[in-house]
């Protein structure tokens, strides 16, 4: 596609061709539920001035237009036009949930199984990532047992796979962990696994 055949561009002609400046365009873009739009007053004042709404492109990235229209640097790839107060990042910055290389349903099942086994056997040997991901759920179960009410018992029964373990836990947790505030597990790192050199650890109930 030879660009020499096109007439030379200039920023002025381009800017004229575009809809008006990005900050105003933000409010002029059609939302599926305009009633939820918070600044409806601004919208109505702008509507009278701008051209009719184009096809819905509310979630398209603003960056190309921003970089054309204004000279400011945009910091990160933030979709700031999703107007429910959240920010959506393209990277994983700040997300602390361990994914364990599994989809969410399988991940939940894995953690439920691991906590059941740890409460049953007292000490198990797994990979370090799984051991450190489990701690939260073990502490949660022991906290439920410390409370001891029927509602908490039923919540524990919904998480742990074997009900004898839940009943045994609720019976013995007061003498065992009555004084201790949190930190009911201990992780001891060991030699890596032979098959895939995965770093292993023992996790045990304190």
């Amino acid at each position, binding site marked *: 596609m030879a660009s020499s055949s096109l007439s030379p561009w200039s920023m002025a002609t381009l800017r004229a061709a575009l809809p008006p400046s990005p900050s105003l365009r933000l409010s002029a873009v059609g939302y599926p539920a305009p009633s939820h739009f918070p600044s409806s007053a601004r919208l109505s004042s702008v509507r009278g001035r701008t051209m009719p709404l184009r096809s819905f492109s509310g979630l398209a990235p603003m960056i190309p237009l921003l970089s054309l229209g204004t000279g400011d640097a945009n910091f990160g790839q933030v979709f700031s036009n999703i107007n429910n107060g959240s920010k959506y990042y393209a990277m994983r910055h700040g997300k602390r949930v361990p994914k364990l290389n599994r989809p969410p349903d399988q991940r939940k099942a894995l953690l439920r199984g691991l906590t059941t086994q740890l*409460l049953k056997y007292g*000490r198990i040997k797994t990979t370090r990532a799984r051991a450190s991901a489990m701690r939260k759920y073990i502490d949660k179960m022991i906290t439920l047992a410390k409370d001891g009410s029927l509602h908490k018992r039923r919540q524990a029964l919904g998480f742990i796979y074997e009900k004898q373990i839940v009943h045994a836990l609720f019976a013995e947790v007061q003498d065992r962990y009555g004084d201790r505030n949190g930190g009911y597990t201990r992780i001891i790192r060991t*030699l890596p696994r032979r098959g895939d050199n995965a770093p292993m650890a023992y996790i045990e109930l304190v």
Partner: protein
Amino acid sequence: MAGYVDPLVVGRVIGDVVDLFVPTISMTVRFGSKHVNNGCEIKPSMASDPPSVQIAGRLSDLYTLVMTDPDAPSPSEPLMRECLQWIVINMPGGTDPSQGEEVVPYMPPRPPVGIHRYVLVLFQQKSRLQDVIPPLSRANFKTRSFAAQNELGLPVATVYFNSQKEPASRRR
């Protein structure tokens, strides 16, 4: 990680079985060809015979070796802590347990549930021990009280290993 934490402290051997001590005598424990390091995994089938224990020290000193399992019957409910496996007394320094008197015969590890720690503790005797009565039962043994009874003081060496029940069917 800042600082080096003794593996005996990490594995809670110091605390459950013995008190904090300063190791003065070097002790090497081997099951066949496998050397025992703190926290290594030993199969019960490998440990059916007593280990070969080599201790340093002068020939004139006498030592006592105690082997227990602090996680009996299960690490999550150690009701029978500790289960006694072996006691050898009057061992001269620089030799092995065959030169001492076996007060309690060696019982190989048989962990029923979970992963158990097996701790070998070496004490230095002040004098030759006579008439050491073996405990009535192996369960609910307390290494500290045994040491206090026979005036053994703090240990001079400790090592521990892990062991779990081997699956009955052959692993494919």
